[in-house]
């Protein structure tokens, strides 16, 4: 598999190098990006490695959305409430300045001790959280602010009230809103990218993952209890569905990997935030001259193309 991906990347590299001066400097930036990804990919990911990443993605000292916000943005102003029912504390939203420019940011928020974990509902949003994200995106669209979303959730909250308030519909509509935005959008999986709760705010022009983040259709435990009928087989499940960044890149699901400090983001929050900030600025720069219509068209085309088919 990894070899195939390497070939795929090499192919793209060759293609890009062949196109001379098509879009000037931006092309060479793209080239460098691909080259870096290729190097990363060469270090093949073993089952042990995948599990280590799952553990790091859920590490209790890992920086969460607001840890990044306070280190990356100036003049952060948090927005509260979905303008209908309540303020979902598992989803934060607001506006602030990144490198001198106002952006809107939404992200899942986990807590660090028992009290704040409960307060943040373990980073699992209700439909109200997704509605807060939607209205923040609408605000960004009105004012031409780029949208950054930080994904870090075990999944959307599975509860009676969440269902009664329309969890499925809220997740579907948030994706539809993201697909329609005429402003540049970047989503970064900074920890756990858990299923529908994650994809709701990850339908962006650029989807990135931090080196030790995970992105998956179901939690390893959930997958193990369904397919192996034993949640203890989580490690096996993880190596079967490969939620690590290298494999997501290989499958074309993400556009790039954001490096973390040696040993993982939990070791040095400041350094992790600086690396994330650099990546956001670089990608926003690449997107800034593209018209809203073009962004929408490319974004739709990208998500329309995802999937692997065989023909008989």
């Amino acid at each position: 598999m990894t070899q195939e991906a390497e070939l795929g990347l090499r192919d793209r590299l060759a293609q890009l190098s062949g196109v001379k001066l098509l879009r000037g400097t931006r092309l060479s930036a793209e080239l460098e990006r691909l080259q870096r990804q290729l190097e990363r990919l060469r270090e093949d990911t073993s089952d042990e490695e995948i599990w280590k990443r799952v553990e790091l993605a859920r590490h209790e000292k890992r920086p969460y959305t607001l840890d990044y916000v306070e280190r990356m943005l100036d003049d952060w102003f948090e927005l509260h409430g979905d303008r209908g029912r309540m303020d979902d504390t598992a989803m934060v939203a607001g506006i602030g300045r990144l490198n001198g420019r106002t952006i809107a940011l939404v992200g899942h928020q986990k807590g660090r001790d028992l009290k704040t974990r409960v307060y943040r509902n373990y980073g699992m949003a209700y439909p109200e959280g997704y509605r807060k994200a939607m209205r923040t995106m609408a605000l960004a669209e009105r004012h031409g602010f780029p949208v950054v979303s930080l994904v870090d959730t075990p999944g959307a909250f599975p509860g009676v009230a969440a269902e009664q308030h329309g969890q499925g519909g809220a997740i579907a509509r948030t994706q539809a809103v993201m697909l329609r935005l005429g402003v540049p959008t970047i989503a970064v999986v900074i920890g756990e990218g858990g299923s529908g709760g994650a994809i709701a705010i990850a339908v962006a022009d650029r989807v990135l993952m931090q080196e030790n983040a995970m992105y998956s259709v179901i939690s390893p435990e959930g997958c193990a209890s369904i397919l192996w009928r034993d949640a203890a087989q989580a490690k096996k499940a993880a190596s079967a569905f490969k939620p690590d960044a290298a494999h997501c890149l290989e499958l074309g699901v993400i556009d790039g990997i954001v490096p973390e400090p040696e040993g993982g983001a939990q070791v040095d929050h400041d350094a992790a935030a600086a690396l994330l900030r650099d990546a956001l600025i670089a990608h926003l720069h690449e997107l800034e001259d593209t018209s809203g219509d073009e962004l929408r068209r490319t974004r739709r085309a990208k998500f329309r193309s995802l999937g692997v088919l065989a023909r008989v």
Partner: protein
Amino acid sequence: MSGVSSPGHIDVSIEHKRADPAKGNGDKHPNTCPGCGSHYRDDELAANLRVCPQCGFHFPVRAPERIEQLADPGTFEEEDAELRSADPLAFFDLKPYVERLAEAESTTGLGDAMLTGRAAIDGHACRVAAMDFSFMGGSMGSVVGERFARACDRTADEQGVLVSVSASGGARMQEGILALMQLPKTVAAVDELHDAGGTLLSVLAHPTTGGVTASFASLGDVILAEPGALTSFAGPRVVAQTTREKLPDDFGLAESNFRFGHVDAVVPRPELRATLARLLRLFGRAA
């Protein structure tokens, strides 16, 4: 509801007690009603649209039979039948994914969990996308996503109406993260359909859960549900295990979703064809 004949009187009261959806029919014969214990020959049940004549329980309907129930005879032409799933992760749980796919194909006679094509309902040309729960739990992987998206494209070209009938356990785990990507993919397809002036009529059959609820099935211009159908994002077992909450008796059922404003109507199966015909007339372009 003129113009469409419906079978004789069938008790379709939606207040019947539903068997625990998680348990389904248990070890009973598939033609034994979980609602009242009556047993039927297969042809009896098929003639009644697979609705129990005694208590109104709605038995599951496979995709080909669903299309037979809804479309005018001889009008259905399948499209994209050649699409098959690849195995991008070389996924292996207790069995390899390729083996599960082959088994599902040979037992169901279908290439994947959704059947799409053109059809007419009561003389109104439209497209139909019907899911089949017996193909790997109606799970949505790359083929379901692609068939649905192509059905949207073709409908968009004609500014027509796409009728989807969903029955799905959610995203197909064996395709990993690519299965999750079928959510935005189908959402994008519906968005383009809407942009082109087309219509999506979404019918939720038992069960419509997980990824399908969190994508195209919730984006219909009109959303209908069958009586007693479980239509929730998280299933009752997951909710009970995670939250240790006591679940209401009608948790996630069509009737509860109607009450909370997530579906436009709960339509008993004998009325579904006539209801769709009426909507097709309303959304159709004046000739």
